[in-house]
């Protein structure tokens, strides 16, 4: 059975945090939610696990015991050791004795299992948060920014954990600001200002981007432009851009085009 949201709207007072957002999360697959600051990614994750009231729409999720959740705050108790954090989560989910040692070893946390949560580095704390969320082999694994502020080696560890959870049959949905991670996801949802701009396979999202992306060495005087390592990207739907050559857009270009156009239309 698939999980997700259908036409989900979340309002906080007069502010709309999410507007008519639908996302599908399939068992054994990884869905990635991308978007800039204030896009609504955290609200979507919280709504999916029932941590925030919803205004309209439907959330499809299993029972609480079958959900694993990493909140933006990692959910690690700073005044408990790694082992005690694990034991608490295992007791809460009645999952004692299962994969704990294997997960700890895989993330390099076995060596620090008597260290307090507050004494862990940001990356270790984040990895522990992911381990706590997937300890009980949930059917739906919801992770809010699991790789933000984490070094590349730890990011790779977390990516392996996520892939292992999906391989184990879990439906995984997570938010990220790193679009290279999203490129590897089975499904991507692009959010901006609480609205879903695009959804589907990364390649489908790239292919669906209309207009043409160009590259030039300096910033153009007009038009939608953004900086990339090899120059300035310019989007145009009305022919060639002076001094620029066409490039094949990647997911990052497609997401930026969608967000800039959405904001331009909204303005």
């Amino acid at each position: 059975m698939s999980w997700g949201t259908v036409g989900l709207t979340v309002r906080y007072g007069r502010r709309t945090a999410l507007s008519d957002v639908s996302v599908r999360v399939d068992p054994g697959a990884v869905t990635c939610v991308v978007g800039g600051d204030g896009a609504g990614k955290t609200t979507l994750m919280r709504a999916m696990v029932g941590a925030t009231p919803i205004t309209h729409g439907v959330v499809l999720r299993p029972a609480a015991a079958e959900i694993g959740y990493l909140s933006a705050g990692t959910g690690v108790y700073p005044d408990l050791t790694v082992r005690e954090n694990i034991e608490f989560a295992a007791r809460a989910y009645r999952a004692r004795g299962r994969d704990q040692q294997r997960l700890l070893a895989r993330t390099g946390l076995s060596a620090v299992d008597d260290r307090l949560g507050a004494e862990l580095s940001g990356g270790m704390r984040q990895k522990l948060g992911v381990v706590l969320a997937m300890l009980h082999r949930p059917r739906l694994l919801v992770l809010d920014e699991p790789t933000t502020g984490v070094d590349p080696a730890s990011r790779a560890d977390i990516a392996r954990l996520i892939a292992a959870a999906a391989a184990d049959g879990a439906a995984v949905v997570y938010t990220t600001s790193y679009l290279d991670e999203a490129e590897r996801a089975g499904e991507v949802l692009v959010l901006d200002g609480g609205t879903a701009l695009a959804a589907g396979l990364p390649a489908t999202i790239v292919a669906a981007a209309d207009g043409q992306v160009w590259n030039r060495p300096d910033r153009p005087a007009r038009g939608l432009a953004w900086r990339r390592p090899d120059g300035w990207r310019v989007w145009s739907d009305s022919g060639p851009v002076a001094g620029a050559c066409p490039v094949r857009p990647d997911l990052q270009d497609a997401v930026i085009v969608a967000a800039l156009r959405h904001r331009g239309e909204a303005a």
Partner: protein
Amino acid sequence: MWAIAVKEFNQLRRDRRMLAMLIAIPLLLLVVFGYAASFDVSSVPTVVVGPRADVVSTHLPALFDVRRTDSGQNRDDAVEALRDGGETAAVVTAADGSVRVLVDGTDLFAARAVSAGGNAAHLSVEVLFNPSLTTSVIMVPGLIGIVLVFVGTLATALGVVRERQAGTLEQLAVMPFRAWQVFLGKVVPYFLVAALDTAIVVTAGITLFGVPFTGEVGTFALGVLLFLFVTLGIGVLISTVSQNQGQAMQLAMMTLLPQVLLSGLLFPITSMAAGVRWISYVLPLTYFIQVSRGVLVKATPIGALWFPLVMLAVLGVAVFGLSVLRFRRDLAPKALR
């Protein structure tokens, strides 16, 4: 310098609790020390018994506020009236013309006033329950209440707010727990710590300060249980309106201070101005002190303590109920749908 001062004012303006405390605490202290903080006892609730009760009651000094006369009762009835807390002094008259004044030694200032007034009027005064008028005998039962307020309110509030600050409360909310399980899981450890603290303070009071334990343990335990019910509820309630431990600490202190000052622990409630005295009657510590002093020092039976016990139960249901509702709202937003 001005930049910092302006920034400070802007922060202070938004910190409503701190602002309230900066205004409320001086006002509270002014009211308390102006109207409530009085050791002077000008009137002592008195019962006059014995065959010449009617005659003697009309000749007593003004200090004795005669509430009741009963010529059919004797000394035993008078002692019982003082034990039950109905009156503070009892005048026992005899057919041979002798008059003896009994006074409740747990009401320290009233007992001292009666001793002085009685001696001046050449009356024989006998102090009951705390004959040597030892301060620790009446302070320790009250301090048990302070310890329970401290652990029950402050520690509980901080414990729950710590979860919110660490971001783990949300994690608890999505775990397969019901709201009541989280609530009890948070409260029970503090309940046990407070119970242990009570045992330690009572034992220390008995062994170090010679405080008697003359009444029923069960009655005392019931009083502690009901009082903890209120203080733990206040603790959780504070945690639901506090975003961080600093705010929780401020609010806990704002509930602790009036209880210390207005519950009768330090100043006799009967000496407080009527406009302030009503505050005493909504403070749980006021009723716990009545139970604690009654059971420990006077061996007051449960039947005579029904009113403070019922008041603690009523306050407990009100505060605990409110805290459960607010805690549930914090923890289970799904239920709002």
